[in-house]
């Protein structure tokens, strides 16, 4: 007990370490999970996945090099899990482990610097371990941040001790290795790893400047290098493959935009003013407010920090104490003052990112320093410099003051000093109450991180394990999976507990080829185009559809196809099995090519026969294949209505797109065919009858101005195939006449007042149908009422199509007229498109397009006379309202080529790991193509072996096929042989891991040797 009182600081530290226990207080069996948190529901699977540099479980595979850095982090979870503890216990242990590491690491540093002053040590620990920067780190349990924050103080302490020659080299090497292991998690975002060395380098620089003599410089540099080399070598297992990935995939120079994160840095830097960064309040999510309620969207406690005087005062007090430290400094440990000063200056400068007034410097650096774009989250990356320097300076201030008052003989001075420090510690814990109490996890809110996984997850897990191979695609197709039991994820939930390969709507890479195919799959599913669903499922290697009834979504739930499929049900989850006969294995052989003109069109893949592969005619590798002269081709034609619609949809809002009238009674297709040949037209089938096309008869088409009847050859639920027609190479124009009905009634006002009067509140609303000659139009006068309107229902039954709205208007006076397109059902308003009409006092056409939310609903067009404060009000005239469907069906031309009818070799294979597949090929009498339905990477290697396992020297042509997958053209081989498909960067991981293990063993041996020597 006496010892406990003597070392009371350890008791305090122990209590600090147990902070995560408070987070789970009164939370039942909940775990913290969701969005970026990604706590695995099977930690062993996650640990195992991190031993491979390719992750095949997400959207046909991605490079996973940097994620191998998470081995240690997930090992901490996997150990208690394998001992049989439940998920909540595993998470608590993992969180306590990392919290304790930060507390202990900061205490080790504080003890090294402020030895003898326990309160100064505790002050450092509290300021370093409890601050608003760590709110976000803990909220998402960010591996890289935690690893960095836990490593910095120990790393610095080690460097300091080594420079001061207070620690032996062998010991230092072992400690460096341990720090290297802790820091390894930083490799998930290598910029965090670099930040660690930036901090150590600043300290080295300060030391050199302050103690500028050759002996000191040599010793300092040697100390720095020995720590750097050991940590670097220990981390080589992820550094080598990640470096390989960065070099091959990320541009060395240029701005952040090259990474595809448009305005990423700017949006993160929006609130990183110097004032906010110095007060450690620069996280972007603090400043996201709901426009209507004015309340924070993500961070409810942010209000206290913005408006509560006590919180504002304290946020200024901490940096003030840090500045004050420079005023009351002494002449001891000058390198620490200088290092902390430089860290503060640099941390604030770089942490502010592109925010003015210092932002131009950050932009300059990102444009001119190679790979600087890795630092794309400046506030998150550089604020550790600020928290370290502020905690260090405050610690130094009180340590110094403590030393000064030692000589002063005033009895009350010491207790007062003690009380002030104690008060500061308590105030800091109160100031960071969201972190202490677990409010950072937003308990009680809809977006809370506390979730209780339902029991059917484990049932589904067992079924997935037993149900073999083949991908599973999730439905509904929202990019965010938001379950009604609390979990929100950006990837498939299946990845949390299963190694089954899953497909889902990608939030991170929506433009990737496989993502466009997945989008197409969902669209065909919603349109109930079952032949296209089957075709895409085969190409994407899909075996079942995972229907999540517990997911909150606007996607239609009544998919007709589901009722035809056999299902396995686990609580709210259903797995619909697609017909086995359509399934194509991941590795197959084919001997026919189809060229795509243009290649990047996912619908062309739907038209590619299953025995052919779809390739890019402009691919240099494909062009090396000599046997391609008779390949078929699929040529896309440009649809004039779709082009106009896309131009309206994708271009920035501008009037030139709107102040015109369009004729939707015909559609033009422009096609450029590559060769003279017979081409079979294939027109998208979806609701052609709505446009008056009778498919039981001939369809009249104008081809290059000449009327030609097209005979329907056959049709599926997705395409109508016509009899082949001959085209010469070059451009051709085709026109199809449509009967495109007006879907509203009474918009020309000849039928009288058939519209509904919209708008509420006091004031006067006058609706009058006036006429000039035979022409009638509507006049709406609004005096003092909120927006009033003439509302027209749309005879609309198809939310999968797009609509065209056109009207004439004339602005007489008052506020500008407007058109609202509202989509709703009995309970919910789904979407309103508001178009403001330019103030124009003559009759003027105005047109727009509307793309509905894909839900059964009602559509209404409102012609508005808006409110104005002017007592004369608003007067707008309207006429000739028309609503029509846009003909967006695509037309393709297919040239079959001369098909290779030779029998295909038999392919059998086995998946050894996510990076390695082995198999056999039998009866390969002719050259053929081996398809591998995993995302294309030039680093996938195919090696052939003869039956005696001897490597067959063969130059294989590797190219991309089916828009996303890999394919090899194989010729000049024996009839039967073996093959291996391997992801080459895995070798880099193996080499790195070997070096890392050897390094650790060497430093451990040196340490043990030293210890044995000293005990002798």
């Amino acid at each position, binding site marked *: 007990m006496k010892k406990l009182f003597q070392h009371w600081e350890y008791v305090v530290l122990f209590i600090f370490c147990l902070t995560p226990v408070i987070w789970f207080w009164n939370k039942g069996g909940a775990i913290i999970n969701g969005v970026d948190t990604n706590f695995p529901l099977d930690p062993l699977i996650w640990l195992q996945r991190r031993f491979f540099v390719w992750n095949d479980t997400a959207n046909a595979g991605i490079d996973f090099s940097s994620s191998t850095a998470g081995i240690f982090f997930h090992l901490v979870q996997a150990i208690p899990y394998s001992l049989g503890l439940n998920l909540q216990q595993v998470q608590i242990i993992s969180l306590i482990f990392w919290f304790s590491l930060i507390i202990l690491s900061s205490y080790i540093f504080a003890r090294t610097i402020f030895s003898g002053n326990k309160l100064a040590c505790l002050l450092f620990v509290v300021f370093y371990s409890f601050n608003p920067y760590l709110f976000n780190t803990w909220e998402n349990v960010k591996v890289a941040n935690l690893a960095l924050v836990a490593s910095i103080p120990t790393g610095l302490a080690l460097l300091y001790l080594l420079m001061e020659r207070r620690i032996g080299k062998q010991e230092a090497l072992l400690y460096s290795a341990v720090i290297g292991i802790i820091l390894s998690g930083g490799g998930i975002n290598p910029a965090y790893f670099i930040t660690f060395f930036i901090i150590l380098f600043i300290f080295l620089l300060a030391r050199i*400047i*302050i103690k500028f003599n050759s002996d000191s410089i040599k010793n300092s540099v040697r100390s720095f290098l020995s720590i750097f080399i050991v940590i670097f070598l220990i981390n080589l297992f992820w550094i080598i493959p990640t470096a390989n990935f960065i070099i091959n995939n990320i541009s060395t120079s240029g701005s952040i935009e090259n990474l595809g994160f448009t305005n990423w840095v700017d949006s993160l830097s929006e609130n990183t003013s110097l004032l906010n960064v110095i007060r450690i309040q620069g996280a972007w999510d603090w400043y996201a407010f709901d426009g209507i309620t004015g309340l924070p969207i993500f961070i409810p406690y942010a209000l206290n920090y913005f408006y509560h005087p006590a919180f504002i005062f304290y946020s200024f007090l901490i940096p003030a104490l840090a*500045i004050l430290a*420079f005023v009351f400094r002494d002449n001891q440990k000058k390198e620490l003052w200088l290092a902390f000063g430089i860290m503060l200056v640099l941390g604030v400068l770089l942490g502010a990112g592109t925010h003015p007034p210092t932002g131009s410097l950050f932009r300059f650096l990102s444009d001119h320093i190679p790979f600087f774009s890795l630092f794309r989250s400046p506030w998150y990356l550089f604020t550790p410099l600020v928290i370290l320097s502020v905690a260090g300076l405050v610690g130094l201030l009180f340590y110094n003051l403590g030393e000064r008052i030692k000589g002063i003989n005033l009895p009350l001075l010491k207790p007062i000093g003690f009380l002030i420090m104690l008060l500061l510690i308590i105030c800091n814990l109160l100031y960071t109450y969201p972190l202490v109490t677990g409010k950072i996890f937003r308990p009680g809110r809809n977006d809370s991180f506390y979730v209780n996984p339902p029991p059917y997850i484990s049932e589904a897990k067992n079924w997935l394990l037993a149900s073999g191979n083949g991908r599973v695609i999730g439905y509904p197709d929202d990019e965010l999976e938001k379950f009604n039991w609390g979990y929100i994820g950006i990837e498939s939930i299946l990845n949390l507990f299963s190694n089954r390969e899953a497909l889902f709507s990608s939030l991170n890479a929506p433009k990737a080829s496989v993502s466009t195919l997945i989008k197409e799959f969902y669209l065909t599913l919603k349109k109930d185009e079952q032949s296209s669903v089957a075709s895409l499922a085969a190409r994407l290697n899909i075996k079942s559809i995972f229907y999540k009834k517990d997911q909150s979504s606007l996607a239609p739930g009544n998919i007709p196809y589901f009722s035809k499929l056999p299902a396995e049900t686990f609580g709210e989850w259903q797995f619909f099995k697609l017909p086995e006969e359509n399934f194509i294995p991941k590795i197959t052989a084919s001997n026919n090519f189809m060229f795509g003109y243009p290649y990047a069109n996912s619908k062309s893949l739907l038209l590619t026969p299953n025995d052919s592969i779809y390739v890019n005619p402009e691919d240099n590798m494909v062009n090396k294949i000599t046997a391609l002269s008779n390949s078929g081709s699929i040529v896309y034609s440009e649809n004039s209505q779709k082009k106009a619609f896309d131009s309206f949809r994708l271009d920035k809002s501008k009037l030139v797109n709107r102040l015109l009238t369009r004729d939707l009674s015909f559609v033009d297709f422009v096609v450029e065919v590559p060769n003279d040949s017979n081409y079979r037209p294939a027109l998208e089938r979806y609701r052609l009858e709505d446009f008056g096309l009778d498919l039981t008869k001939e369809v009249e088409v104008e081809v290059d101005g000449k009327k030609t009847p097209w005979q329907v050859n056959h049709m599926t639920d997705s395409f109508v195939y016509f009899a082949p027609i001959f085209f010469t190479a070059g451009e051709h124009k085709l026109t199809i006449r449509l009967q495109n009905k007006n879907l509203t009634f009474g918009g020309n006002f000849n039928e009288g007042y058939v519209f509904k009067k919209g708008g509420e509140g006091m004031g006067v609303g006058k609706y009058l149908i006036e006429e000039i000659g035979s022409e009638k139009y509507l006049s709406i006068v609004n005096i003092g009422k909120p927006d009033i309107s003439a509302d027209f229902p749309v005879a609309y039954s198809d939310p999968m199509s797009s609509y065209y709205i056109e009207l004439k208007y004339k602005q007489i006076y008052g506020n500008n007229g407007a058109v609202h397109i509202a989509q709703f059902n009995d309970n919910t308003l789904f979407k309103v498109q508001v178009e403001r009409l330019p103030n124009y006092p003559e009759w003027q056409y105005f047109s727009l397009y509307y793309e509905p939310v894909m839900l059964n609903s009602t559509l209404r067009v409102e012609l508005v006379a808006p409110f104005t404060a002017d007592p004369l009000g608003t007067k707008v005239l309207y006429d000739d309202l028309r609503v029509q469907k846009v003909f967006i069906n695509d037309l393709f031309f297919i040239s079959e080529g001369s098909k290779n009818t030779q029998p295909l070799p038999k392919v059998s294979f086995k998946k050894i790991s996510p990076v390695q597949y082995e198999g056999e090929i039998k009866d390969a009498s002719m050259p053929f193509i081996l398809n591998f339905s995993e995302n294309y990477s030039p680093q996938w290697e195919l090696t052939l072996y003869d039956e005696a396992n001897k490597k067959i020297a063969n130059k294989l042509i590797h190219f991309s096929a089916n828009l996303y997958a890999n394919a090899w053209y194989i010729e000049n081989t024996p009839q039967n042989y073996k093959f291996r498909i391997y992801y080459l960067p895995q070798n880099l991981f193996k080499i790195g891991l070997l070096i890392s293990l050897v390094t650790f063993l060497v430093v451990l041996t040196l340490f043990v040797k030293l210890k044995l020597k000293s005990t002798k």
Partner: protein
Amino acid sequence: MRDLIKIYSERIKELETVVGGRLLGLFIFNVVLMSLILMRSAGYFAPFFPISINFIVLVSIVLSVSLLGIRSRGIFLLSLSFWGFAALLKLFNINVWAERTAIYAYEAIVVGVILYLFENSKLSKSNRPKIEDRK
């Protein structure tokens, strides 16, 4: 009271000595500052290089080092006063001014750290061992 007057007259003498030693520097400092403010009010160099208050504050901090001989401690005190003022403005919800004042505080910290570096660096002239010491 008498003690206070005594202390005041002593301090005034000290101040006079300091000012006497820096008279030219003080004169230039004031002239530059006045000129900058006058030029700003007249819109000189705009729009190519508008003289902002931020620029004037930064120039005055830098000049106070070279012309008035302020040491790093003084600069940090200046930064602290800016920071305190920023806090006051923030507490009164005058956010734009608080942001600006925080920029001045940061600029003073930067100058203070640079100055501290030179004051304590063995590379700097003042810290090199004197010739007689070397002997």
